[in-house]
């Protein structure tokens, strides 16, 4: 399944790339795309659970502390 999540305060383009990479490596995730320009994250995974989203949000916060996912 695919989920599109809006992001806020995504200011750094290389951070977007780092987040994409890290989220792609999460278990169960087949693909992740972080669009810096539209501030949208698309995750493709077998099942998108609350746990997965929490982990994704953690990754974002680690890479860019001000950035938030609007879940």
């Amino acid at each position, binding site marked *: 399944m695919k989920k599109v999540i809006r992001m806020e305060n995504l*200011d*750094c383009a290389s951070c977007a790339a780092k987040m994409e990479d890290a989220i792609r490596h999460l278990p169960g995730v087949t693909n992740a795309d972080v*669009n810096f*320009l539209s501030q949208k994250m698309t995750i493709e995974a077998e099942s998108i659970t609350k746990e997965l989203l929490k982990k994704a949000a953690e990754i974002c916060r680690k890479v860019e502390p001000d950035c938030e996912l609007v879940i």
Partner: protein
Amino acid sequence: MIRRQKRKSVRVAASAALFFAALALPLPEQVRLAAYLAAYAVSGYDVLWSAVRNIAHGQLFDENFLMAVATVGAVAIREYPEAVAVMLFYQVGELFQSAAVGRSRRSIAALMDIRPDTAVVVRDGVETTVSPEEVAVGETIVVRPGERIPLDGVILEGSTTVNAAALTGESLPADKAVSDGVVSGTVNLSGVIRVEVKSAYENSTVARILELVENSAAKKARSERFITRFARYYTPCIVAAAVLLAAVPPLFFAQSFSVWLSRALIFLVVSCPCALVISVPLSFFGGIGGASRQGILIKGANYLEAVAKADTVVFDKTGTLTEGTFSVTAVHPQTVSEAELLDLAAAAESYSKHPIALSIIRAHGGHIDKNRIGEVTEICGLGIRAEIDGKTVYAGSGRLMDEAGARWHDCHRAGSIVHIAVGDEYMGHIVISDRVKPDAAQAVAGLKRLGVRKTVLLTGDVKKVGEAVGRELNLDEVRSELLPDQKVAEVERLLSEKQGKGTLVFVGDGVNDAPVLSRADVGIAMGALGSEAAIEAADLVLMDDRPSKIVKAIAVSRRTMGIARENIVFALAVKAVVLALGALGVASMWAAVFADVGVMVLAILNSTRTLRVR
């Protein structure tokens, strides 16, 4: 976010004030030093803090760390003004970058603001204003003049003219009446209409277009992927080079360690390829957004790249280069006048529902007195025999003429020929064919002007018709009488004949060209306004059905590629120059930051040029 930027601006301003004070005013050394350090701290504390925090999270080669090392290094070798200047310029650069990205995002959002905000739905006889998402399929909505039509549907009551400029980029208004379909996103111009909603908001044309443009960023162009890979290697390389520059030359040359260290710090300052990482995707995003306003939907930056390199353009015939409807294109009477021949034919065909009959009746245009017509027999495969004004009139193929005993001759023109005979006397014939679109010839000429090497027509229609169209439009190759899988084979052949890195573009109406569309390098579907199938099938979707849009699509793509390339070359060139000058000791640290920041801002601003499409 704006608040954050404002806070930062205040800090930068305060720091700048301290900096200039320390620089210009005559102060005791201690105070001057304190002023510099204060200026540095005020502007740079968040960078230093981020650097430390990110190391704790395992992020090493990030911007903050490199800037921190560079400036702390500068402080360490007592180049205080340099340290402050670098930090100041860097923060100013960050502010510019945020502002520019914010502005670009807003421009793109404004450009894509074809989204209707409200819909007026009639429930239990009462008109209520709701958001378009809340209207269900089958409900009735009311659209007044001046309002944007919020959902796809069919007109139940009223007639009007609509302007599809927001979707197709063309301002030609179209008349709509009861039972005509209307499309979301178009503007209702003159009359009040009641519309039965045919698809929910998320499936409406507007929503699909917006989704398409947003998702287009996911399909990265080759240049974007190159930049990402480049950025990953560039930073560590520059840092390594910086370390070498600091460590090695002092062993060979006479100068002190700090001279080379300060040059090495310049390398650190230039080690972030942010200009490229932001401006290249921005160019593509802007290009796709700008194109969509012109009614050209590009599903991915990779397709934009591909269509810009079009070498061969293959067209489907019916519906793409031709109108797709039958109409009378010539009336060749033998003995009577054109009007009389047409009159006879129309009378004979007046009871038939065949498309050919309908086109003859349409061409006649006048009133046909049914009293003149007696018995009418439709002879399957041959034509019609009708009693008109007491005489036996035959309208149909050559074989019908043979049966009637009339001496007929064929027409040199291509198309369906309807021969007319009265008794055994041949009256003449009427040519009915599919008309070539008015701007088709201009489109082909435009493609050739753009340097497209080969223009090809593939059609299932008979050779005579295919070749006539080919001649009329000045196409390079025509292949007729093709079955669907033969079309695919032809495309394969053309693909093998491509020259260089050029791509093969196929243009069709999307409905029954799916295999060919997917086989081509780029598949373009035309006339997508209101056609879901077309939007799904192709890589590029043209909202209206004018072939000249193909020329525009290629032109827009080339322009976008050009701007992206400008940014790449400019950014890399400036960085190379700065690195070279820095290594030689000609450039100072703050000059390097200035150049770097300048390049980044210019690159971002340059990218926004892609939004403007003529």
